[in-house]
């Protein structure tokens, strides 16, 4: 069994809401004077206790950004940290990278830890690329010798050879990020902490960065990675933890955790029906009246991956005269990967007069994998090309594995679809 390199034990972090001090001496004195005279503090936060924020755990004017988090990270783990905004991910990373201290609890780790909460921290715009490599490297904890040794590698990785002696203020933002990431990627710490820094840079460079991090992991180093890009996270990470409202909700393999996370936030919407045309979504040409997804076999209400199910969309068209209309939708999986585009245009070519228009689409059983799906775009299209009306994220639903009689997750999802293909298998020769 690999060594434990990070141990987080009962970690709490408190932030004070409202006012600790008023940041000016005069207002502190004012508050003090008011208290002395027995009056209300003129600087006390307004509406304490009436907070409309329900999410964060409030305790008077305190706010616990992290509550009793404990977990361990083994050497060589690629740990993904997921959670909605405000879950405490950044706070956790800040504590781990020693930018701020915890309120209670302890973190212990072995080896050198480097964190990349932001790319290009400490870059000086007036200095050249080469000079900034040294400066940034030193800020991240490298010695001059280390950097000199790695210089060529860093330059090659960043692909900025030609601009090395140009001040970085003249760099494009892409070059800037590449250079910054290159420095950090060559730190060679035993533990690397990476916050959502790959949001910048083009797709090719993002892939390169992920590749670099993967390589770092293969070298037996430990990586902690925070990202809202679940796909990147799944590709990279082996382990995962899910934070929510400051608490550690789930820990396990990256897949389990991401699945847990996604399921929790995918509120199922299997039926949307607007009975009043006035308030129905749409424009002056068409309205959406109803959208539904349901198993074809009306006796059950869960959609099983081995049984057919159907979509049912109803529009109200107000386009005068006869027009060629089609209904099209995009189906995404939980990682927001496009599974397919379904359209009546693939099989029909009809014209319609103004009025209600209903489209039903039957999907075979044994096509989709289990998981959460979203109809991201529902379109009414005129003349094979003009979008009359588009409705976003209209439906979202769950496809479950039929043999998973038990609740929830039964195993790893393998592939975007799981079609039952026409196989033959027989002894031969």
């Amino acid at each position: 069994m690999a060594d434990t390199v990070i141990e987080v034990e009962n970690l709490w972090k408190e932030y004070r809401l409202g006012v600790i001090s008023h940041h000016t001496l005069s207002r502190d004195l004012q508050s003090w004077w008011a208290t002395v005279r027995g009056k209300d503090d003129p600087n006390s936060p307004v509406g304490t206790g009436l907070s409309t924020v329900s999410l964060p755990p409030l305790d008077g004017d305190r706010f616990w950004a992290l509550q009793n988090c404990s977990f361990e990270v083994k050497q060589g783990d690629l740990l993904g940290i997921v959670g909605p905004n405000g879950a405490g991910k950044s706070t956790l990373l800040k504590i781990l990278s020693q930018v701020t201290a915890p309120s209670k609890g302890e973190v212990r780790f072995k080896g050198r830890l480097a964190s990349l909460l932001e790319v290009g921290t400490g870059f000086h715009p007036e200095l050249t690329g080469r000079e900034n490599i040294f400066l940034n490297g030193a800020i991240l904890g490298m010695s001059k010798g280390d950097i000199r040794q790695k210089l060529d590698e860093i330059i090659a990785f960043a692909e900025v050879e030609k601009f090395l002696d140009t001040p970085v203020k003249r760099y494009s933002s892409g070059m800037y990020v590449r250079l910054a990431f290159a420095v950090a990627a060559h730190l060679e710490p035993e533990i690397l902490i990476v916050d959502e820094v790959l949001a910048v840079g083009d797709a090719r460079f993002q892939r390169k960065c992920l590749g670099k991090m993967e390589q770092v992991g293969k070298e037996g180093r430990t990586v902690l990675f925070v990202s809202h890009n679940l796909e990147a996270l799944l590709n990279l990470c082996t382990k995962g933890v899910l934070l929510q409202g400051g608490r550690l909700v789930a820990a396990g393999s990256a897949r389990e955790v991401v699945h847990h996370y996604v399921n929790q936030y995918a509120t199922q919407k299997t039926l949307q029906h607007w009975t009043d045309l006035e308030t129905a979504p749409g424009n002056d040409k068409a309205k959406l009246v109803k959208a539904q997804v349901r198993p074809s076999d009306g006796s059950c209400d869960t959609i099983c991956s081995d049984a057919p199910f159907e979509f049912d969309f109803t529009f109200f068209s107000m386009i005068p005269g006869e027009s060629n209309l089609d209904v099209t939708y995009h189906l995404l999986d939980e990682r927001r990967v496009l599974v397919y585009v379904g359209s009546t245009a693939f099989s029909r070519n009809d014209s319609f007069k103004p009025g209600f228009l209903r489209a039903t689409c039957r999907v075979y059983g044994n096509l989709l994998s289990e998981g959460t799906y979203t109809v991201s775009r529902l379109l009414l299209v005129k003349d094979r090309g003009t979008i009359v009306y588009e409705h976003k994220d209209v439906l979202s639903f769950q496809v479950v594995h039929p043999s998973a009689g038990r609740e929830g997750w039964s195993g790893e999802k393998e592939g975007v679809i799981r079609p039952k293909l026409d196989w033959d298998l027989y002894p031969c020769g």
Partner: protein
Amino acid sequence: MPSTVKEGQPVRWDKVIRPRSGWFDLHLGELWRYRDLIALFVWRDFVAVYKQTILGPLWYVIQPLVTTAVFAVIFGQVAKLPTDGLPPFLFYLSGMVAWKYFADCLNSTSNTFVGNANIFGKVYFPRLTVPVSVVISNLVAFAIQLLLFLSLLVYYWATGSAVRSHLAVLLLPVLVLQMAALGLGFGLLVSSLTTRYRDLTHLVGFGVQLWMYASPVVYPSSSLPDKWRWMLVLNPMSPVIEAFRFAFLGAGSIDLHSWLISLAITSGVLLVGILSFCKVEKSVMDTV
């Protein structure tokens, strides 16, 4: 405590992050390990400031020259303050050079937390590296100005003015060290307080200005009436400036007694400064 678990073998952790530390958790050894960073900060300060300026480091010379000339006119010609029988220009310049290093150190370190919040919020390194590097990079400006002062001194000396340098110039490193320590100490103290009270930054600006007039920069301490002498004793900078002037120009004297007091104050301020700085640095990013 699970730090001694698994196969009965104590686990060795390289670093333990805990909520709060005592007053004496200074980890100054870390500062030494980050010496390369200090060197790079010094170099950055020096290089970056004068990029895209026409005169570059020449500003280090122009500034004190012009200020001294103004002083010589206002205090020497108009106010007719005594200069202990020294050439006015040399007298004012010596005061300026010594005072300016101290004032620069204080001013530029007093903004450490607020000015570097964006870096401090993103990456860890010993925070003391920043003020220490600032003090060192100010040394470069000081050296240039000292050179200017020395060349003028040689000029006056060659033209037969009544200046004679003392063997006490050997004390220069001690004096410089004291100026740096005093400026750093006050700067650290102020910077840890500014995390709470932003208005202190305004106070520092003109406080240092006023302090200069309370120090024997534009007048010799011998010209001060006896009833204000206590002020010079309490002011740790006045013996330093006096000693500096005595060493190079041979006027005035070194009062060992008041210098010892000033040394004591200096070490006290430096200690309190470092302690409060290290105390604040852990939680500062939550309040700045």
